[in-house]
């Protein structure tokens, strides 16, 4: 496969993985938790580096998973102790993110991990960083990680489909009929953490938020059904990645930034022109009613 195709595949996998997982968070009104986790995952990656002295896939995934769950746990604890939820999220993620950034400065030049990378990723380097076993080249590590996380997430959504659905729609009722809502909550938090860390190399810790939230929110404006929403969200994620990459390649600018911007443009289109919920479409309908 050529260099460009690898990048496009990576970007699409980011869009698909984050889009599907993130749409669940939009429905649960936990977008800002996704924002928080995507920031704090940096600390997990840095921590995994200090422990394992490398930037390999597995320690990173574990570190990110742990810190992601801790983030959700800290936010939850502060909130239940009486801190309003937005402030609880704000204080937890800025603290852990700041710690991550400061710790990065201590890593120095030993490995390719700096604050800039943490912010916007380096999707253009992804094709060079390949998985080599016994001298055989199995393709970019990022693609493997994204693929594994995507399959894992889809599998989890598939087996816990109705539990996720009911605990999102009506958590109290879910609890009443014996659905372990806390388990589902942390399951999703883990899925978000894993998606973030798998996307980290490509789009960085902050811009992954765009891939997590924006496709889901866009799909939410386009459909009223649960399963189509998941599919659509993944599709919009891929589309954002493709448009973003095309734009970035043409203007020679940040790929991840362009992907975020592209997702924003798609959202704006849905916001204005969605057949059911678009602002302009509704205005026209209202006028027809009036006349």
């Amino acid at each position, binding site marked *: 496969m050529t260099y460009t195709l690898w990048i496009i595949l990576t970007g699409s996998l980011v869009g698909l993985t984050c889009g599907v997982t993130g749409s669940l968070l939009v429905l649960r009104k936990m977008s800002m938790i996704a924002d928080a986790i995507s920031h704090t995952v940096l600390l997990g990656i840095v921590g995994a580096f200090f422990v394992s002295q490398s930037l390999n896939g597995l320690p990173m995934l574990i570190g990110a998973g742990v810190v992601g769950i801790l983030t959700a746990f800290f936010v939850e604890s502060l909130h239940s102790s009486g801190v309003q939820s937005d402030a609880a999220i704000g204080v937890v993620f800025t603290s852990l993110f700041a710690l991550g950034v400061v710790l990065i400065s201590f890593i120095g030049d030993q490995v390719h991990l700096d604050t800039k990378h943490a912010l916007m990723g380096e999707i253009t380097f992804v094709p060079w960083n390949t998985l080599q076993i016994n001298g055989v080249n199995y393709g970019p590590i990022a693609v493997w990680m994204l693929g594994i996380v995507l399959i894992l997430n889809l599998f989890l959504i598939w087996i816990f489909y109705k539990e996720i659905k009911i605990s999102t729609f009506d958590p109290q009722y879910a609890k009443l009929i014996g659905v372990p809502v806390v388990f589902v909550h942390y399951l999703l938090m883990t899925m978000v953490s894993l998606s973030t860390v798998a996307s980290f190399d490509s789009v960085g810790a902050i811009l992954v938020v765009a891939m997590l939230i924006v496709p889901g929110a866009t799909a939410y*404006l386009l459909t009223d059904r649960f399963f189509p929403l998941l599919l659509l969200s993944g599709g919009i994620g891929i589309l954002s990645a493709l448009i973003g990459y095309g734009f970035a390649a043409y203007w020679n600018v940040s790929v991840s930034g362009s992907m975020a911007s592209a997702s924003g443009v798609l959202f704006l289109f849905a916001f204005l022109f969605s057949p059911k919920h678009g602002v302009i479409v509704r205005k026209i309908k209202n006028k027809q009613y009036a006349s």
Partner: protein
Amino acid sequence: MDFNLFSSANFQWVFFGSLLLGFANGVIGSFVLLKKQSLISDAMAHAALPGVCLMFIIFEIKSIPLFLIGATITSLIATHFIQSIVKHSRIKTDAAIGIIISVFFGFGIVLLTYIQQNSSGNQAGLDSFIFGQAASLVRSDVQLITIGSLILVIVTTLFFKEFKISIFDPQFARGIGLPVSFFNGLLLALVVGAVVIGIQMVGVVLIAALLITPPLAAKYWTEKLGMMALLAGIFGAISGVSGAVLSSVINDLPTGPMIVLCASVIFFFSLLFGSKKGMAVKVVRQL
């Protein structure tokens, strides 16, 4: 370590600048916290990045006042977008904030890389708007921060009780003839001001923490708004100074994250030992 640091004139400016900046953010943040707009302020901060970059692309000079104007414009656009998304669609506030934060910041990064590709070397320092860099500040920058912070503190103090009533009970405030929307707008302007003058030192990514964390820490020590704002100001000032000093003394430490870490330490200490709601107090009471 440079021991002459503390006597250098530039350092004294940085010292006072970070002190006042932290203080102003803490005080204003107290109101932001009460209005439950902590995360909206984060969105405003992230949205400042494209504003700064656009100004540089248009005017092709590095001028702090111009950057501030650009940042103000895009921050205000961002808040406006959040409000209209929530108002005109079924998207809830948290998702709207998340969308605006990530898309505006992403666009800012696009512009930043565009500048790095296409401008002729004069872009030095724009990077520091992301995480802040006290070391890169020249005297005029710090003077601007100092004077700006001072103005913010004075305005907040002048209208303290008006802010208080229009946040706590806007209906009543309207009833007694206060222009509540004016004060809402003024508070918004103060937040934009705090964010914008702070981004050079703290950076767009973390400046909101300076608005969120000190007031939250102060809440563990007092239940009175006046005292809370004052304490938040003091906590902010301590964080600002210690973060700025630490990052100048130790090489390569980014200023913003250091300031935020100091604030986080204060918060953590308050969470444990705060005299009103601290965990230690709660444990003692239960015994």
